């Protein structure tokens, strides 16, 4: 604002000089953090391999590192889920409330193939996104004809119903669940797999945002009739975005199944995942490239820190609900909106967001 050459913030779509500097600082800090995060799991395996010992005898450092890597893996998983949701919810503007169905399907694909069919994890994993994608394409054709609330609740119902159907089929473990054979000392492997899934989801978003396909999706979000008139094959585009999101979500589910080595309906079809991934994308900034990543890191870190388990988990859930309400009311465009430089976080910003949407 103090810079005389910069255009008034209100009319500028380009970030100001201060905004650009802030962005550079954030980017560098992010890269440094990313390198540390990426290298940490290596220390874990080296230590384990060198000592060739049971984790229990490796001491407290190892245990702490192990739990950090576990947390990193969880965060990477939610980056993948939020970024995948962003493709259908953020870019296309379809309020998908049931992506957990694809997560669960991916998890059950790996669980079923490794536990019941004794396939190796490496062979089973590629089928997880495939199954989720095929299911999404089939169900997407009727469901994506619906708009607004109808689509939201229909997808919410999908998440619930798929979990229930699978629980009722004995071949898939029924009420007992499935037990993929445990891979020992593989914490680093699962972190890198999950991180790769997250990177794949972000890369896919990057590619989509730069493609004709991405412009078509945004056109659908802004005005579906107009997009259709302009020659966008809206049905094909929507189903493709839904299927892509499902494949990425299913892949994360597949990795999750082998990572936890036990899955049942409750662990891989949790309804709150639906909303967590949406909240992450919205807090960060729906429709943007890094919004879901930022949202997933911040929110999942908060959840992991607050919820030590036991009674704390209840208060963490209450906090999550309150955060959801505050976000929706005050920062509906996500934090990327003001850290990106086009607007500033101020009381006026919060008041404007509030006034725009209230009666």
């Amino acid at each position, binding site marked *: 604002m103090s810079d005389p050459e910069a255009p008034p913030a209100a009319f500028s779509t380009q970030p100001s000089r201060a905004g650009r500097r802030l962005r550079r600082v954030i980017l560098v800090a992010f890269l440094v953090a990313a390198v540390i995060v990426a290298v940490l799991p290596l220390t874990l395996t080296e230590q384990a391999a060198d000592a060739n010992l049971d984790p229990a005898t490796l001491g407290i450092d190892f245990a702490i590192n192990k739990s950090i890597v576990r947390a990193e893996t969880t965060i990477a998983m939610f980056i993948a889920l939020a970024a995948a949701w962003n493709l259908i*919810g953020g870019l296309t503007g379809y*309020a998908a*409330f049931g992506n957990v169905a694809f997560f669960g399907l991916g998890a059950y694909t790996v669980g079923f193939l490794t536990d019941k069919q004794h396939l190796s994890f490496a062979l089973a994993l590629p089928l997880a996104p495939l199954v989720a994608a095929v299911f999404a394409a089939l169900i997407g054709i*009727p*469901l994506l*004809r*619906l708009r*607004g*609330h*109808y689509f*939201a*609740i*229909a997808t*919410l*119902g*999908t998440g*619930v*119903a798929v979990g*229930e*159907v699978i*629980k*009722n089929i004995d071949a898939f473990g029924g009420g007992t669940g499935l037990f993929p054979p445990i891979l020992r000392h593989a914490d680093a492997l699962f972190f890198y797999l999950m991180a790769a899934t997250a990177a794949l989801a972000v890369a896919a978003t990057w590619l989509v945002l730069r493609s004709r396909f991405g412009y078509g999706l945004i056109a659908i979000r802004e005005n579906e009739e107009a997009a259709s008139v302009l020659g966008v094959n809206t049905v094909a585009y929507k189903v493709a975005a839904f299927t892509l999101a499902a494949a990425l979500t299913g892949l994360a589910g597949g990795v999750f199944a082998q990572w936890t080595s036990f899955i049942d309906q409750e662990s891989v079809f949790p*309804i*709150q995942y639906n*909303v967590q991934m*949406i*909240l992450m994308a*919205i807090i960060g900034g729906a429709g943007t490239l890094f919004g879901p990543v930022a949202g997933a890191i911040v929110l999942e870190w908060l959840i992991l820190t607050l919820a030590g388990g036991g009674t704390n988990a*209840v*208060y963490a*859930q*209450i906090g*999550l*609900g*309150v*955060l*959801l*309400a505050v*976000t*929706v*009311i005050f920062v*509906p465009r996500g934090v990327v909106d003001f850290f990106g430089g086009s607007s500033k976080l101020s009381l006026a910003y919060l008041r404007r967001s*509030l006034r*725009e*949407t*209230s*009666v």
Partner: protein
Amino acid sequence: MGGAAVTLLIQQVVLGLMLGGVYVAVAIGFSLVWGILNIVNLAHGALVVVGMYTTWYLFSHFGLDPFLTLPIAALALFVIGYILQRGVINRVIRAPLFFTLLLTFGINLVLINLFLVWFKADFRSVTTSYSGTGLVVAGVTVPYVRLAALVIALLLAGAVGLFLNRTRTGFAIQAVGADKDAAQLVGIDLRHVYALTFAVGAACAGVAGGLLSTIQAISPTAGEPYTLQAFVVVILGGLGRVSATVVGGLLFGLIEVLAQSQVPGLGAGWSNAIAFAILVLVLVLRPQGLLGRLA
């Protein structure tokens, strides 16, 4: 043989209609809020649970008959609903619908976890002297509490219908539902009418919760299935009329009981899947519902 099969079928139809009564009670408030405010209230199930706990508390601490607690549950929920809408949901009412979905989900999350803090995850029940007894007519059993639930649900639907079509406030609510800007132009206070509509919807949820507490176990998450089921009822009947909700609810109850008892392989664990199948079928084949007008 034939006679027994017919009796069994009649028994299932009776049970289906009574289950439908429960669905009618749950869906009336949900339908009202959706139709007028254009909000799909994902916290509806949690509001039903508030009603359940209200009845349970009055029954177990003061020995009040569960059916006598219904007005108190309705009143409590009316107040909670008014505050929720006026204080919170009104803030995002002009935002894309997606945000109201997220907001009501957030409210749902907070309520469920508050129940967990206050009441723990224990299952509670309201068992009266007449629980488990019923009328037997020609071999068909009609459980008293379920019969009462059906009758009260229909009375509730009638009361809401009369309120909307016979009172000034009801007209104001309908006017806001039809065109909120025009309603504001003729001097209707939108903020108040929104809050009032949500409050009436919540009060209906309270009555539904009170009725349900005599029928099923009470726990913090007991209301969760009812949000999806209320949605299915509204889709099935059609949005915008109380009578459509009644037809949708009764039909949904019938379909569920008959599908679970007549279709081999389907059992009690399939109720969400059945609800979802109906939902998708109706949405694809007849999106305006069986009795609905096109939006």
